[in-house]
């Protein structure tokens, strides 16, 4: 795909050169883990002396439980910048130059998607670090091995691809920044709250839990949570994780194909 690499480098360059954007992107994971981890800590409701693991699918504390969710939400909220970046390029002029150049239309969009995935991965790394260093933070009660790292990386990359593609498809013909923010608000909050990202499914109303089971945010959050809490998985746990990752992979593949088709056919100045 011609033009993909130089465009990707341009995007990353713009990111690390903008100190505010870089800093907020890096501080945000700390905020989220600290705020979500304390504000939503449901184990406090149970009172002292209660074993939190009973509430939290075996996690010894709420932060350990929620890390998978926060990693996923980071992908969701950073992914939306893919859309706004496309609109910025259109409104500020560079899009006109890209379209006049002998490069694949899709590389214009995929450069944004890929730079978004890279940024999400960096944020994820910092987030895991942040969660480990804070008091009563992330622990790995079942140990930790290379396979677990691979599962977490796969889940984050897939969910990052899904959301970055989703928001770029939305922005492919859009000129109005307000419109995309409206859509982002409309999509992001339901995706966040109708999922297993923040709370165990036993806490949810059954109809809500039924819907949440089909939310990709749940698939990613649960896969990461499963390996963090259990370390080495049993075969039945593997089949759950396999199902979630498989579903994420299929969805990601569909989104990438959709992005490709939309970018090649529909992108405009």
């Amino acid at each position, binding site marked *: 795909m*011609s*033009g993909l*690499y*130089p*465009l990707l480098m*341009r995007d990353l*360059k*713009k990111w690390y*050169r*903008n100190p505010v954007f870089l800093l907020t992107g890096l501080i945000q994971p700390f905020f989220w883990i600290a705020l979500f981890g304390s504000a939503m800590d449901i184990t406090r409701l149970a009172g002292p002396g209660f074993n939190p693991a009973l509430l939290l699918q075996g996690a010894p504390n709420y932060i350990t439980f929620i890390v998978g969710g926060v990693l996923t939400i980071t992908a969701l909220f950073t992914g939306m910048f893919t859309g706004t970046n496309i609109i910025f390029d259109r409104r*500020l*002029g*560079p899009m*006109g*130059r*890209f*379209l*006049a*150049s*002998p*490069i694949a239309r899709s590389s214009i969009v995929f450069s944004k998607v890929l730079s978004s995935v890279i940024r999400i991965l960096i944020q994820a790394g910092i987030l895991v670090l942040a969660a480990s260093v804070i008091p009563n933070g992330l622990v790995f009660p079942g140990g930790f091995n290379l396979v677990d790292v691979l599962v977490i990386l796969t889940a984050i990359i897939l969910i990052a691809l899904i959301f970055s593609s989703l928001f770029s498809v939305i922005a492919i013909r859009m000129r109005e920044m307000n419109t995309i923010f409206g859509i982002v608000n409309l999509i992001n909050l339901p995706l966040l709250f109708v999922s297993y990202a923040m709370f165990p499914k036993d806490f949810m109303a059954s109809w809500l839990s039924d819907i949440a089971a089909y939310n990709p945010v749940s698939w990613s959050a649960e896969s990461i949570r499963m390996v963090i809490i259990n370390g080495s998985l049993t075969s039945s746990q593997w089949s759950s994780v396999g199902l979630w990752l498989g579903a994420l992979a299929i969805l990601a593949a569909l989104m990438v194909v959709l992005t490709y088709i939309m970018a090649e056919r529909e992108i405009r*100045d």
Partner: protein
Amino acid sequence: MDLQPIIKVENLTKIYKGGVMAVDSINLEIEEGEVYGLLGPNGAGKTTTINMLTTRLSPTSGNATVAGFDIIRHSMDIRRMIGVVPQDLTADEDLSGLENLLLVASFYDVPKSVALERSQRLLRMVDLVEAAPRQVRQYSGGMRKRLELIIGLINEPKVLFLDEPTLGLDVQTRTTMWEYIKGLKRDYGMTIILTSHYLEEIDALANRVSIVDHGKILVTGTPAELKASLKGDIITFGFRTASDSEKLLEYPGGLEKIDAKDGVLKVRVENADKTLPELLSYLFQHGITLSTLSVQKPSLDEVFLQYTGRSLREEGASDRMKAMMNMRRVRKT
């Protein structure tokens, strides 16, 4: 020798959504090495035509070839061959001038070392060497337009499309841009397609020009031909003695009187360059002395008026508006 035109346009038509006829079945042939002007007011269809020829927009019907390639089927080949300087600014404000050049060079698979050497040469050409490492957001409007010009040249194009290259620039900066554009033709023999609604610009740069209005080509020719089609220059004589005016009109070659009053005579002649010396010797022989003498050559403005029924200058209000909006984006510093 029969040369194939480098651009051939046949019945090219663009109808936008909602039925707006932007370009109405135009035909054009542009020879290699020519500077070809499209002159017309805003909304005449110049930019739409350029956008179709540069493959950014597909035509509703009709077709065109650029450098032998079909604009519909071989858009990638055309993009590789041509340089485009669109009306809007396209440089990335967050990158430096040089980085912008190198980024666009990489789109054309120009090797890094070649791209660097070429960028330096182009930056020298438009006096941007010192500004090259600075972020484009710090550039003035004129600097940004100059950068746009050389970004369009980074792939050493065979054909260069310039869409309103001096829109919104002050007179001095505009003249400098003209010098660069003339240099491209002189030094590289580049074929240049130029749109403008500045008559002086077309007059200064173009070998041939088409006047465009409401999506149609009204007339095509060299600026001189078009002006000649107005049939004549206007000569204004001022006499010391008012009665001398009558004596001059007896001139045997025949003069077409336009206006005569208070010792001032306005006549129309076919070609003032030829007629004037003869007239002067006639005046001398008959002992007539002049107080003033002026020759007015027809301008493209009058040609435009004749073919469209209105003056380009009347477009002033919307033009200023557009220039202002452009400047708001250009000048951030």
